[in-house]
């Protein structure tokens, strides 16, 4: 298992467009990938699951993956958060 902590830094949080990008990134890996708050964890390949996190700016999240490409998967998902999902702020 590979796991990393990340914080949402884009202004709109994990909103629908960001969640769609996250799902497509997650779908490009074979591993099972999860994103969780301190309260719950959801499948990163489920867009509606991600949206139920209702994760706003500043929310600390854990990205966890299990599978043969888990390290690359976690790095790619964390990169999305760090790059603000390609948003300006």
């Amino acid at each position, binding site marked *: 298992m590979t796991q990393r902590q990340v914080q949402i830094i884009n202004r709109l949080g994990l909103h629908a*467009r960001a969640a*769609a990008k996250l*799902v*497509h990134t997650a*779908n490009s890996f074979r591993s099972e990938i999860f994103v969780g708050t301190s309260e*719950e964890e959801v499948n990163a390949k489920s*867009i*509606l699951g991600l949206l*139920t996190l209702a994760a706003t700016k500043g929310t600390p999240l854990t990205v966890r993956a299990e599978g043969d490409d888990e390290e690359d998967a976690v790095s790619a998902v964390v990169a999305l958060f760090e790059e603000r999902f390609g948003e300006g702020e």
Partner: protein
Amino acid sequence: MIPVLVLTHGDLAISILNAAQTIDPQLADRTEAMALPWDVDSDSASGSLKQRLRELDSGEGVLILTDMFGGTATNLALPFLDPDRVEIVTGVNLPMLVKLGSLRGQELPLGEIAQRLTSAAQKSIRVASEFLRSKNVRAS
């Protein structure tokens, strides 16, 4: 990838698909809207629908998403229902389309996509206060 036609009264199909494509640009591919005028002529609309289905179907079948069971859009689509070639899911909503976007790239059969979209759309309808209460209970 199975093509999808959103079929509704008025301009709802165009607007809801525009919104979904803004959220998930992958929905730009092989997902189309067909808007029925309020004074629709059913024979001509049925002919247009038949033509659209022919154009969309490249051998994998077509999924039609309509606005409301019992409404004109669904009634026009029902004669084309053929579970192996044309499936219909009623009650299209934005979560359903966003879910469709997330399934792009997976080679799922027509019936499986229809089931997954239905489940996602139904689960997405929530009373916010009840949902938040259940979250708080889980967290405590």
